[in-house]
């Protein structure tokens, strides 16, 4: 039975990757959005290196957060419209585990590439080299939390009037702790270099907490949305 669930989870994960792979543009869109937003800032603020450096951690993290928020729509919406979600609810396996598999796939396709690309953008934004390691680690710890928390509003707003943008409204306030500690960690290591460990371990704690309740909450939300 357990092996069964694992196979099913692996298949859901694989299906998600396959679908995203087919929508080849989608694989890179969260990424491209991240790149574009970080590029817009120097354009809007002006090119002074010092000013840029001051805001760099914040801008990079806000951009990552917005990119994740936008891609949340794709987590369930198309499956809802074509009826695949109905079928997922009719699967013989615990819904929360299948949802967890979907979230994992979502992170692999949005958060992970974004974290891996961030050093490049950090250099553009004049972030000191010593802070780049922290940036990557903070994104690796923070983006899965964003996906996990974000899945709940994404599931709640399915089929709801104005669903798409409503998600951002519901999700962004919930994201504040991750944003604060993510950006602070980077800023701290750009400055004195210590203190960032404290922030990073807080991010880790958030991730653990989100892992424990988000799959449950979002599968409950899916059942409500399809009622």
């Amino acid at each position, binding site marked *: 039975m357990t092996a069964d669930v694992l196979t099913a989870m692996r298949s859901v994960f694989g299906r998600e990757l396959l679908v995203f792979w087919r929508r080849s543009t989608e694989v890179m869109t969260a990424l491209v959005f991240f790149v574009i937003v970080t590029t817009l800032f120097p354009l809007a603020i002006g090119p002074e290196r010092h000013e840029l450096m001051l805001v760099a951690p914040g801008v990079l993290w806000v951009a990552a957060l917005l990119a994740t928020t936008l891609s949340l729509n794709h987590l369930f919406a198309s499956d809802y419209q074509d009826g695949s979600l109905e079928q997922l609810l009719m699967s013989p396996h615990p819904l929360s585990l299948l949802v967890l598999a979907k979230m994992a796939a979502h992170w692999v396709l949005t958060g992970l590439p974004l974290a891996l690309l961030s050093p490049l953008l950090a250099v553009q934004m004049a972030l000191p080299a010593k802070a780049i390691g922290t940036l990557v680690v903070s994104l690796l710890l923070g983006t899965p939390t964003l996906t996990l928390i974000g899945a709940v509003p994404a599931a709640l707003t399915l089929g709801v009037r104005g669903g798409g943008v409503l998600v951002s*409204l519901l999700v962004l306030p919930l994201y*504040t702790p991750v944003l*604060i500690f993510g950006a602070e960690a980077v800023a701290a290591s750009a400055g004195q270099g210590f203190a960032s460990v404290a*922030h990073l371990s807080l991010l880790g704690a958030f991730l653990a907490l989100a892992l424990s309740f988000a799959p449950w909450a979002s599968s409950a939300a899916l059942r409500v949305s399809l009622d």
Partner: protein
Amino acid sequence: MKFIHKYGAPKRFYQLAGTFIPWFAGITAVLFVSGLYLGLYWAPPDYQQGDAYRIMFVHVPNAWMSMMAYVIMASFAATGYIWNIRLADILARVSAPLGASFTLTALVTGSLWGKPMWGTYWVWDARLTSELILFFLYVGYMALQASIDDARRAAHASAILAIVGVVNIPIIHYSVYWWHTLHQPASLTLTNQPKIYATMLIPLIVMSLAFMFFYLTMLCVRARSEILLRERHTDWVRKLVEGKP
């Protein structure tokens, strides 16, 4: 459980609330009048701020109520979701706008107070920021309710959101405070708070009680009209409406 189901019947609650409302409203009125008297006349002007500090008697109770109302709202929502009790759904739904208006009042009065105190309407202080985020959470909750027409689905969906919010609120609250303290201190803070004397404390307590009873009264009033709206097709509401044309 049985008790809840007995008194949790919307019809029963409607009648019960009807008898309580005059009492709550009366207490609210008395508290407000005496609180305002104590706050505006009895309490002496502050030696630093003059009379400007009196806005505190509105600001502080509202700030407290804004947080309390969220917890109450989320508890109702959770009760309604887990045990499928409609009255709890209704109470959760009607407390959201109340909580949101407490939050908004706290924000506005705080800003107005900020101008004489700090020379600006807004700073990104921890307390202010977390209050603002609380406001967004309320708005999100109400927006979700508003965009689902089916009453039961709206109640369940927003209950899940409220529950997730309740897990998150302490985290948000403290992270904003840590944000403030782990970092270098902000240029402007609430450090120069007036030291609370009894002459200020008493009106403050009276005003807080006044707002609490105001909340109770409004909760009953709004719940009653929500019940009427939802049960408009049932016999007892029809009789009620026909009874007093």
